[in-house]
């Protein structure tokens, strides 16, 4: 894989994570338990979709095949998506949505901070822009995981159930595959082994404060980064891509 194709892969991984998580979270609009949280969820989704536009536009440039961000979002099929499995997990209840958000945010912020030093200028500038937004997301999701984990018996039980359910999917974030290793070797992205240590320390501290326990020796569910997804992503895409599939190039 040449340097541009490799950098494009990185942009797809970052962009698809933001797109799929943004699409999932946006489904809460009008349904959150309280108004302030409804607004918060919509704002987080909006940030993620905005970041998606930057990442996918850069990916399209690097691929040089005449695509744009919309073409990459709406015309690729499920096997071409490079998001990790965690972000395509269904929303579940409010607690599960927040736990998924926290597990992603705790990876997203340090990843963006490291990508500011990427050898690709486009990647570095998007990371610089997105970092401040991701920092704000992490502040919120960490705070709510602690408050709900160390809250009532009901909220604690729901957060523990969410953690039990989602923890196996968190491993993929910091487990390097061949592409990740090539990205690190090229200086395009950080070595994920280093990220894994930071991630383990950050999440352990949060769960201790939240009185939650991460499953021990849980199997790591991975494959999304390489295009092998759970069935949930197909349903998500069917809904998200319907209009552009049915009416290609529609504008309004």
């Amino acid at each position, binding site marked *: 894989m040449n340097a541009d194709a490799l950098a494009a892969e990185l942009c797809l991984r970052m962009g698809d994570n933001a797109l799929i998580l943004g699409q999932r979270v946006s489904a809460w609009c009008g349904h959150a338990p309280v108004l*302030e949280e409804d*607004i*918060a969820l919509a*704002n987080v989704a*909006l*940030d*993620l*979709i*905005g*970041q998606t*536009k*930057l990442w996918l536009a850069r990916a399209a440039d690097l691929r040089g095949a005449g695509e744009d961000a919309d073409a990459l979002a709406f015309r690729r099929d499920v096997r071409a998506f490079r998001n990790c499995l965690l972000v395509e997990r269904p929303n579940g209840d409010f607690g599960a949505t927040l736990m998924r958000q926290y597990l992603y945010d705790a990876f997203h912020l340090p990843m963006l901070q490291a990508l500011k030093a990427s050898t690709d200028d486009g990647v*570095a*500038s*998007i990371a*610089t*822009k*997105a*970092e*401040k*937004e991701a*920092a*704000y997301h992490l*502040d*919120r999701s960490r705070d709510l995981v602690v408050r709900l984990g160390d809250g009532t018996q009901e909220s604690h039980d729901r957060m523990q159930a969410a953690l039990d359910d989602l923890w196996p999917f968190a491993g993929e974030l910091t487990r390097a595959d061949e592409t990740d290793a090539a990205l690190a070797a090229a200086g395009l992205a950080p070595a994920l082994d280093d990220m894994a240590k930071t991630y383990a320390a950050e999440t352990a501290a949060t769960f201790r404060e939240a009185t939650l326990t991460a499953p021990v020796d849980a199997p790591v569910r991975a494959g999304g980064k390489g295009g092998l997804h759970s069935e949930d992503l197909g349903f998500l895409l069917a809904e998200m891509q319907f209009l552009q599939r049915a009416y290609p190039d529609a504008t309004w």
Partner: protein
Amino acid sequence: MVTERAPQTFRPDPRLVWRWLEDVPDPEVPVVSVVDLGIVRDVAWEGDALTVTVTPTYSGCPATAVIALEIENAIRDRGIDTVRTKTQVTPAWTTDWMTDAAREKLRAYGIAPPEAGASCAGMLRSGAPSSCPHCGSSRVEEVSRFGSTPCKATWRCADCLEPFDYFKSF
């Protein structure tokens, strides 16, 4: 009526164009202009086209497209047909670029302005308003970290009890 226009011969100094843009309001917070907000980064002639470089506030801010359109319209209204807007992501926008005049306009409008220098420093990344924009009391509390637009959070005054928007330090 059809107005015939000659090829672009009117080439005003970019400094004049900056003054025009001071009259283009932000679509979400119309009391401040796009120049006040610090999102206009450059105005320059590139060949026959007047190019305005704009940086987005938040990546997903829905006002971004409207702002570009309003800037282009404002310039076309002055008789320049070949105008385009260019988006620039780096350096990333910060509320530190907001003018002092803009901060006062926000306060008068009922929005607590961002507290300068607090952006991205420490844990409370959005900073905190120093006082209630309605009564001036410093006894204020956060209601929600988010608000009606990506750039704002919701706060409340403990003295006059009024809720208000805080333009987050970012």
